[in-house]
């Protein structure tokens, strides 16, 4: 790792020879005396869904925020598209094409779908809001994601179901030519049918060639959509590899003890 602006070489655990879109190396982060992340490595690939698992307090949210620009890591390198980057703000992350959908979705209930999707990035025409252009663009995005259950694109978000709200939040994130989408607990508090809707949506993002990282407690959902699985345990990345190399039992063991079958700190990619 002597090169400054080139991604470090290494065995490619995805197996198809592709360069990872996002590569984290040795990310440390502490808050006062509390060390939240210890030298975390993580690769996220375009066209793949990575499930990030971990118990409460494992550091999932901190890691997500480091990628999203909400926190800055104390040490470590971030490579995006092969080049080292410094993500100092959420604005930096957006400029790179990294969008985050937080668990609380951050939608304004009183605004309609179009208004929410363009909040903060409204299009103007002669100084006034260009509602027509925004409505067309939002409708296009929703239809490419096949979000078809909303009755009207102009209905207030308050009148949407939980799954529909999640879909709007995801559509809002991918509308800006984003390359990497981070989803924080996208299926928490959703019913069975709505969870299905959201998982389908995640698969469609993958099919569009986006890199997706799903942070989830729900192993059913993770195994359903994830191509790769990464497990954090007390701030350390204890397992990272293709989803086929894990079963439910081993993921739970990594999440709760940091080891599986007595093998602690599994090196990335060696799980098979």
């Amino acid at each position: 790792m002597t090169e400054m602006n080139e991604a470090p070489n290494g065995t490619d655990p995805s197996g198809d020879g592709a360069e990872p879109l996002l590569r984290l190396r040795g990310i440390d982060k502490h808050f006062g005396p509390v060390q939240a992340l210890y030298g975390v490595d993580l690769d996220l690939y375009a066209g793949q869904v990575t499930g990030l698992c971990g118990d409460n307090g494992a550091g999932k949210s901190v890691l997500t925020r480091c990628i999203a620009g909400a926190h800055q890591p104390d040490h470590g390198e971030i490579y995006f598209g092969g080049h080292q980057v410094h993500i100092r703000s959420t604005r930096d992350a957006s400029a790179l094409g990294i969008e985050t959908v937080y668990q609380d979705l951050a939608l304004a209930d009183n605004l309609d779908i179009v208004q929410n999707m363009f909040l903060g990035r409204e299009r103007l025409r002669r100084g006034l809001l260009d509602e027509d252009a925004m409505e067309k663009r939002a409708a296009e995005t929703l239809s490419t994601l096949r979000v078809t259950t909303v009755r009207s694109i102009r209905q207030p978000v308050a009148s949407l179901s939980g799954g529909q709200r999640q879909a709007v939040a995801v559509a809002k994130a991918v509308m800006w030519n984003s390359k990497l989408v981070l989803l924080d607990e996208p299926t928490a508090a959703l019913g069975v049918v709505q969870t299905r809707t959201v998982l389908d949506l995640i698969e469609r993002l993958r099919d569009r060639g986006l890199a997706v990282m799903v942070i989830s407690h729900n192993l059913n959902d993770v195994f359903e959509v994830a191509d790769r699985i990464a497990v954090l345990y007390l701030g350390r990345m204890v397992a990272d590899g293709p989803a086929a190399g894990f079963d439910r039992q081993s993921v739970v063991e990594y999440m709760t003890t940091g080891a599986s079958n007595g093998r602690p700190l599994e090196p990335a990619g060696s799980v098979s």
Partner: protein
Amino acid sequence: MTADAGEIPTGTADDLTAADAAATADVPPELLAHSLRQYLRAWWVQVRTGNSGVLPVVLAMVLVAIVFEIVTPEHAFLRPSNLVYIFGLSTVYMVLAMAETLVLLLGEIDLSVGAVAMMGGVIAFKLVQQPGPDWPWWAAVLAALVGCGIIGALQGTLTARLKIPSFVVTLGGFLLFSGILVVVLGGADGNVDLSSSSANQRVIYNMVQGLLTPVVGWIVLAVVVVAAGAALWLRAGARRRQGLVTPPVGLTAIKIAVVAVVGAAVVAICTINRGSRIISVQGVPWVIPIVLGVLGVWTLVLQRTRFGRYIYAIGGNPEAARRAGVSLAGIRTWSFALCSATAGLGGILLGSFFFGEYSTNTADPGQLVLYSVAAAVIGGVSLFGGRGKAVHGILGGLLIGGIAYGVSLLNLGQLSTPLQYMLPGVVLIGAVLVDVLSRRGSGGVTRV
């Protein structure tokens, strides 16, 4: 097909054209209805579930008109002269309610609008005094608006940046400026008058008292109706051609017709001679086009600009607005400033309404605040932020003006003054109840 069957019983995409689909309680009816019939059905479903829009305030106006017509001596309430007087009085409350709306939409409140409005009026009146500053009327009005705007910006800064609740900041502002007002007027019995013989001062004097000739009144009405109607109609047509969400054609036509009929009724009432056979008094007061102008400006700002959109976003979910990169403190401070500036205009109209005379007895700043908050909330602006439009201030202001004047017509003797406070108070609580109940009906969330 990704139907959320758990949430919407009829929720398949094919049902969108069905009449039943249009009639759900939680979606504004104009979005889904394809015909007027569907719209009316969906609208009725909404009314039954508590989202009645402007229906309560319109019904309340009819009720107030009927009751006061019956109980006033000689059944005088609906005489043209009284109605025109109510229009004039109401315009003050309308402007103050529109000012208050800017702040209520954020989920904040401004209790100082009454005192700040009177400050604005007194500043403008003082600046045009002839032995004195003798400023041109427009400079004096501008100075009053800017002065009030600065007051609002200060209060807004305390609220937005130091996180002091707006209730406390503006309650302090209310007391502070009520006191300063007395000092500026020159003591408890001081006053400042406009002379209608000075051409410069007459402009401000005539803002409420001046009349358009009936012919000009009808021309103004025609221009307003044709311009607004054409804008509404052409915009709906253009959106329909592009396949965007548009209300049914019939609904657009009805809206235009309502504007035309209400406008014609107002002009007709104002055109009836309310003077004597020798000195005829007829015509539309200047203040009506002025208030329509204020309505137009605030409707445009709230509905069609980024600033307005951010006000709604902050009222709906401040965290969402913050994450979207909206400067919460900036938008809040500007809203308070613009609220106070608009209130300043209301204060100028108030002085003009009282024949160009300002004294400490002109109005009670506390009662003005109560009336303006009541007018906004009765009109349909939510106290909890995020819901309401400028036009709601117009409707609420007219209702409050009607009640305030109706009470003063009654020969109640000792009861008159208490009723001036009690009736609007009861109406305010009733309006807040409607607001709270409609929030409950929509699952505890506000909506535009």
